[in-house]
Structure formats: structure tokens, C-alpha cells
């Protein structure tokens, strides 16, 4: 068993750095306090640590050679394998070596490996549009297991790469996972079929959606800024995407749905290539192709038709307005 503090090394490659910036949004406590309280020591993080240049490379080399204990390796961003498998689309500065090859060496030494964000997990947005950079995830290439490290890879702990997917990740998803690791409360049973932590991936974005009344009645938004349900027309995948965005909430009280826009299912493999414009719902014979998870199609169609016909005027009118135009009636008889 490793002893506390756990040594954490963070690397960034073919991503945007947004998962780190999101992590800085952690509150109560703030990021550095939480890490300290969890007994996690930041060996090096490219955005946050003091050490530069040779000092930083010494830390990486010590981990790669086994001179420094590497308890947790976090990789943010996809692995750039291009051009032609050389990895030259990201040479780690100051080393003349592809980041791809650093990650292979370090993952082989790490007790746990975390893919932070959908790029690191599955390739993500960087793998979209024909994937010009040859971007892959650490252990997945889209929905296919493999990626850089291959299907058989296991970290020294015995776990596969933990895919903290999300674009970006919620700070809580990363920190809860780290805390569970630090408390030795994280086992293979805590991973879902895509190796995402179940602590957030066992939920659907739909859970806690503030537009739920519109969903119930299939009172649908037709254009950006409408208040109605975005599943029928606006491309929303909240009823299918695995994440707790509408119960955990972002930046105080936010979420995509609360921000007025559809869930693009950013925690899912291949979200970057949905096969339709992001803001449009693909349909066959007027019925969305992507039905709510676990919902039989015949029932969905029957219930949708019924609830549409039962939609109250208030819900129908508010659905296509940007603010409440009809307020709930105030009953003067007392609530029973």
C-alpha cells in the first residue's frame, strides 16, 4: 500500500487546458486546500507548479525511472499520435521527445492513471473532423477500447485507466475521484462500462433538469433562448447523457440547460461527431432518433402524443418565450 501523501503528477497534451481551469473553480474548500486535506501532494502540474524547465523534467524523469513514487498520473488532453504515428504533433518542450512516449513510460510506473476530460478518455473534440492530429484517448479511441495504452493495460493498482470524461470535467468529478482514491474507497466496481467513475456517471443529465415540466408535456423550445424542452428540436441529449450536471451544478448554480442550451453529451465517447448539427435533433417521421435512456419507443411515442395533447396553456406558451409569459395561477382556496 502506498503511504500518504499520495504523489500526483499532471500532464497536458492534445487538449485545451479547460479541465485544469475548471478544476480551479472548486469551492469549499478551494483546490489546494482540498488536495492538502486529502493527503495528495502535487509533484508537478504544468499550470500551477513552481518548477520550470530542467527542474520540471527532473521530476518527470525521476517518476519515469522509478526514483520517485508515482501514485496518481493525471493526463489532460488527448494523445497526439500524428503525423503518421510519430507523435510529432506534440513534442514535450525541452525534451525533443513526443509526449506520447513520455505518457507510455509514466503510465507504466503509475499506481493509478486518470484520463481527465473526454479528450484524454476517448479522443474527444480533438479527434473530430477527420482527426487531423491522430488524437486518441489513453485507453479508448472513441467507443473502442485500445487507445494509446491498449485494452490490456492495467495500472499498478490493477485498475484500468479511470476515465473522468467531460468537456470540460466538473471539478467535483475529478476531486471526488481523487478523494476516493486517497481514502482507498475506489475499486473496479466504481467504474461504469466506459470506465467512468460511477459517482457521477450513474446519473443522467436529465435528472434535476429545470425544464422538466416542459419535458413532461413535450412543450418544446424552437429557437435559442426559448424556455421549453430542448429534446425535440434543439439537439438536447440530456435524457441519454451520463452525468450529474443538473444536480451537482456548475459555477454556483449553472448547467448547460440552465445556461439556455442543449446538452451535447460531452461525457460520452464520440460526442464530437454526432452525425447531425449539434443544435438540431435528428428525427425519423417526426420522432427523435435518440430516445430517453431505458424508455421503450412505443411507450415514448404514445406518452408524447398524450402529454402534448394535455399541455396546459401556460406551459405551451412559456416554452417558446424567453421569460415566463404566463405565471402559475394563484389559487385562493388553500393548497390541499
Amino acid at each position, binding site marked *: 500500500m502506498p503511504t500518504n501523501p499520495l504523489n500526483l503528477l499532471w500532464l497536458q*497534451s*492534445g*487538449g*485545451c*487546458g*479547460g*479541465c485544469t*481551469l475548471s478544476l*480551479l*473553480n*472548486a*469551492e469549499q474548500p*478551494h*483546490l*489546494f*486546500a482540498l488536495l492538502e486535506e486529502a493527503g495528495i501532494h*502535487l509533484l*508537478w*502540474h*504544468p*499550470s*500551477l507548479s*513552481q518548477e520550470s*524547465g*530542467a527542474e*520540471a*523534467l527532473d521530476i518527470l524523469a525521476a517518476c519515469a525511472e522509478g526514483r520517485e513514487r508515482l501514485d496518481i498520473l493525471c493526463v489532460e488532453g488527448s494523445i*497526439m499520435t500524428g*503525423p503518421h504515428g510519430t507523435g*510529432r*504533433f*506534440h*513534442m*514535450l*518542450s*525541452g525534451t525533443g521527445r513526443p509526449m506520447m512516449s513520455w505518457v507510455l513510460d509514466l503510465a507504466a510506473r503509475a499506481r493509478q492513471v486518470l484520463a481527465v476530460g473526454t479528450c484524454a478518455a476517448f479522443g474527444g473534440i480533438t479527434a473530430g*473532423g477527420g482527426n*487531423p*492530429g491522430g488524437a486518441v484517448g489513453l485507453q479508448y479511441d472513441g467507443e473502442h477500447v485500445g487507445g494509446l495504452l491498449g485494452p490490456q493495460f492495467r495500472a499498478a493498482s490493477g485498475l484500468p485507466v479511470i476515465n473522468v470524461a467531460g*468537456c*470540460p470535467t466538473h471539478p467535483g468529478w475529478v476531486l471526488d475521484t481523487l478523494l476516493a482514491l486517497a481514502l482507498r474507497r475506489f475499486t473496479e466496481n466504481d467504474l461504469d462500462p466506459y470506465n467512468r467513475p460511477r459517482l457521477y456517471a450513474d446519473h443522467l443529465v436529465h435528472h434535476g433538469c429545470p425544464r422538466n415540466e416542459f419535458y413532461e408535456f413535450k412543450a418544446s423550445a424552437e429557437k*435559442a*433562448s426559448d424556455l421549453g424542452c430542448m429534446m425535440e428540436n434543439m439537439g438536447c441529449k440530456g435524457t441519454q447523457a451520463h452525468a450529474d450536471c443538473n444536480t451537482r451544478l*456548475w*459555477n*454556483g*448554480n449553472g*448547467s*448547460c440547460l440552465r*445556461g*439556455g*442550451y*442543449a446538452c*451535447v453529451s460531452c461525457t460520452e465517447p464520440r460526442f464530437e461527431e454526432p452525425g447531425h*448539427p*449539434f*443544435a*438540431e435533433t435528428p428525427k425519423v417521421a417526426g420522432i427523435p432518433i435518440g430516445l430517453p435512456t431505458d424508455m421503450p419507443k412505443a411507450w415514448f411515442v404514445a406518452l408524447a402524443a398524450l402529454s402534448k395533447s394535455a399541455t396546459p396553456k401556460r406551459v405551451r406558451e412559456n416554452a417558446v418565450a*424567453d*421569460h415566463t409569459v404566463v405565471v402559475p395561477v394563484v389559487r385562493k382556496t388553500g393548497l390541499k
Partner: protein
Amino acid sequence: MTTRILGPFNRVEGDLEVHLDIADGRVTAARVNSPLYRGFEEMLPGKHPLDALVIVPRICGICSVSQSAAAAAALRDLMGLTPPPNGRLAEYLVTACENLADHLTHFYLFFMPDFARLVYHERPWFAAVESRFKAVAGSAAADMLPARAEFMHLMGLMAGKWPHTLSLQPGGTARALEQADILRLVTVLRGFRRFLERHTFGDSLETVAGLDSLAALDRWRDGRRGDLAMFLTVSDDLALHDLGRATDRFLSHGAYGLFPAGVWDGGAGELDPGAIVEDVSHAWMAGDPLPPAEGLTRTLPDKADAYTWCKAPRYGGQVMETGALARQMLAGHPLIRELVAVHGGSVQARVLARLLELAIVVPEMERWARALTPGEPWCYHAELPDEGSGMGLVEAARGALGHWLSVRHGRIRNYQIIAPTTWNFSPRDAAGVPGALEQALAGMAVEAGDPMPVAVQHVVRSFDPCMVCTVH
């Protein structure tokens, strides 16, 4: 002559490598390598034009909203839309929130920790600076992180989340606020003001924003507590006003209807976007110099004489610097104009311009928030044309960001992006003229035995580089 390769530069956004030629203790030439290529400009052609709103923010996690705003602006131009007043104000608030949070992150987490390095342990200010600004452990991070996170509640309210929002639309914002939201927004802004006045400035924002000369700054800082005063102490002792001068030519796209667009070359002039050309002579890219509306992105990894994935934008053939310093030069801030007139654009001027923007823009945000009107429109709508083009010019925290979009048969035909650090960290052009950082580093004195000279790090970080935007 020796050549030294510096990297990784941490505490910048993304990965960066700098090559220095050194002779007689001085840098004779610098070459800046942006070592990551992902290929966003190759991904976008063929996509639905509105898909850009999902894809381009993900170029960058620290300038995400700026990328959103530039895409929305380019689409707006294509569609011929004008947002309603609420939509315009919402965009100002959301972009200002990102830009100011980035200024804060730069100062507290990226830039100041370098003065907590042991190389400075004999300076009289060292103990105070180390205890306040040492990376991860310093007291400033514990003050700043909660303040930043609470300020970012503005994003939760107005943009759903940060980074990577889809709230900003060509016709305004998808998130209409109601009375209760606006009240919370006002409270969030008050909290951020309180942090800045207490910790960063030790004075009211209005007083700091109104410092109008070097003499006024000197009087103000005398005996002053706070993080800006601490920076000024360090800056004077290390003569940061004499460090890191680039071309003193500045470019800004203009921001918030508050800071004007323009170029500065000894005096302020109009910005002509038609004068912008991207040169790829020293990038691992194929092609000739082209205006971004016609730009081409085709990698050529084995190209001789190339040393970066970054193209070299030029304005009328000239190297330009962009960022808060450029914005404030063009806005005519008297203190910044005087600083540059006396010392040129320096490490000190760049950092001071950012901090001044915090003091100038937060009171404006308070005014914008109070001008929001529930019940009035937030977003206008229009059909997307099947053919056409659009240009979106905005300001990210670190400077001018431009998107050039063309559409054919209802799909994106070409999408080109010039980011702030593409300007600042550009390589040489076909005439051999180095980019802004390369010029700022040339001539610097460097210690023989120091593998990563700290003064070089000050100059590099003074630009607040965003490497993931640079190449995209």
C-alpha cells in the same frame, strides 16, 4: 555562440519551447516554438456553420468564451444580425468575466510565483513575496482561488458553466435573465470588487483606475499595502520597466464598446482588417502568405528552416503586439501611455495594464448588470445563408482574437483563426523579421550557468501566453 533550449515553460497555458542563441552573455537571437498541433482549422470545413459554436470554444480552456464570442461575431456578420441591447450587455458581461478572471489567474498563479524563486533570496522583499506568492503554498492562492470561483458564479448565472458555454449566440444570448438572476449578479460583482479592493489594490477601484501619471502612481503607492504595491516594489528593484521591450507597435480589436479598436505605431490609427496577412515561411505549414479570409492550413512536418506550428500574422507587413497593454494604449490610458513613452512596452507595463483593467472594467460590469432589462428581448434570430462569409474580431484577455469564416452550400468552406499569442509569439516571417517575443528576448543579458534564466521567464510570462490558442 551557444544555443540553449528552454522548456517546458510551465505556468503558461499550454506547452512552449524557446531556443536562445547566446554570445558574450547576451541573447543574440530567439526562436519560439509552439510545439502542439491539433488542427481545428482542418476539422471545421464541411460542418454546419453553427457547429462552430460547439467546437471552437474547445480550442482553449482559458479563452473559451472569447473563442465563443469570436465565432458568434463571425456568424452574426454572415447572417447580418444585430443583437438586442440585453444580448449585447450579456456578451460584455460574460466576456469581461473571463478576461478579468484570466488577468487574476495570470497575476496570482502564473506570473508572480517566479519572484518566489530562490535566486532572489537576497532581495529585501523576498520573504514577503515568497510567503504571499510561492506556487501552490503561498497565501495569495488561498485568497484568490475562492474569489475567482465566486466571481465565476457569473458564468453559472449567465453562461451555464465555464469553460465551454453555448450561451453566446449570433443574435445575442440563449440565457435570458429574470429579476432574481440580476440581483444575484449584482451581489457576485460586489463580492469581486471587495476582494480586489482589499487584497489586490488596498484602495477603491475608481482611485486605481484614475491613476493618470507615473507621478500619481508613485504618490499612491507610498506606504500602500496590497498585491499591486508589492509587485511595484519588486518591479522597481529588478527594473522590470527596462525588460522585455518588443516592437512598441500595438493592435487591438476593441472591447465592450469601451476600449476602441485600432493600431498604435507612434500614434493611434484605425484598424484595417484587410492589412492582416499570415506568413508561414518558418512554420511547419505549406503555402504562401495569405489574408486570413483566404487562409490555408496544411501541415508540412519536414519543412526545412521551420521551427514551430505557429503561423506569423503581420499587419501591413509589421510585427504587432497585442494584449491589455495594447488595449490601454489605444484607449489612451494616461498612465500606460506615459509608461510606454518613457520606457517602451515592458514587463512592468504589461502587468500594470492588466491590473488597471481589473480596476476599470469591474465598475463597468456593475453598470452593465444594472442596465439589463427582464422581459425585453435577449436574442434575435435569422436564417443562415447558404453562401457567404463573416469576420469576428474580439478581445481575449491576452489580446486580439479574429475568426474568418466562409460558407458554401450551407456548410463551412473555410475557417481561419488568429489568436492573440499567434501575434505575440509568431516566428520569423519571409523577410526574416522575428516575432514580438523573439524581439523582446533578443539582447537580454543571461547568466552563463543558469539553464532557465528567470528574467527570460518574466519576459515570456509577461505576455500571458496562451499556447493552445496560438496554434489551435
